[in-house]
């Protein structure tokens, strides 16, 4: 029980963002992460809400960030690149296990929706 209480589970947006960061690899900064989310959620994403979630994830130690190069097309402002930490990887695997277990308990619902 104590072990469970210490674990981090990710919310829907946080999980999507972590997966997008992993998928984008070296190109994971605000713009592509937001585009990736828009592509899959099929609705406009607020870039600042993505940053707010990224800040929360960084605060939990699940991702880390570094500043990149400042370019002219960005008005001289640097990109902030994100990377998933080992703890972040452990957490998404744990979240996936929990979700899979819960879905497997609902085979009927799975048949209806597939």
């Amino acid at each position, binding site marked *: 029980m104590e072990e469970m209480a210490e674990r981090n589970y990710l919310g829907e947006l946080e999980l999507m963002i972590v997966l997008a960061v992993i998928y984008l690899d070296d190109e994971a*900064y*605000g*713009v592509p992460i937001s585009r990736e989310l828009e592509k899959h959620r099929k609705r406009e994403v*607020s870039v*600042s809400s993505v*940053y707010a979630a990224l800040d929360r994830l960084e605060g939990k130690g699940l991702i880390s960030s570094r500043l990149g190069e400042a370019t002219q097309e960005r008005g001289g402002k*640097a*990109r902030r690149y994100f990377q998933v930490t080992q703890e972040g990887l452990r957490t998404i695997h744990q979240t996936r296990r929990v979700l899979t277990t819960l879905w497997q308990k609902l085979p009927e619902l799975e048949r209806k929706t597939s």
Partner: protein
Amino acid sequence: MRRTNPPFFATWVLEHLTPGDRNNALSGDLLEEFRSGRSTSWYWRQVLSAVAINSAREIRSHLFVFAFAALWTIPSRAWWIFAFWSAAHSAGFILPWPYATTLGMAILVFLSLWAGLAAYVLLYSITERNSNLEGAGRGLWIGPLVFSIITVAIRPLYRPLGLSILHWEAITLFVYFLSLTASAWKIKPRAASESKAKVS
């Protein structure tokens, strides 16, 4: 022809209402997206969303300041009644000057704000277990300045709006609450802010 720069005012709002090194990256991202074909309305929506999210975060992280300012403002009503009464009855005699009463009241209000600020600093340093704080010096002049500016700005509205003395007292107490909140807003442990600067 498509514009290459987003609306100036929107960018100004973004940079002034969502300050901080971290928001530089957001500002650059929005500019990059705008230049890659996003519309002006998209840019405005993103700016307003950033301001709302940033404001909510600021308010959440300053709940202690709000609670303290509210608690200090409630009993200060008694102080106000005494201050106004004594200023109105004595300042005109002591200082033979037309604005002596106003000046007397202002001094008493400022003293009350400074006492509130001192109490906040003491309480904050006890709860944080850190007496090395920054921002208190700024608070000394911010509170009186905010109070003076708002009071002077809304003063001409009382008569046209037909406000009673009770309305006036409630509004003044609210302005006092805002002024004390503004005074204490930037107070934080010095070590924490320095380490934050190093990280960013």
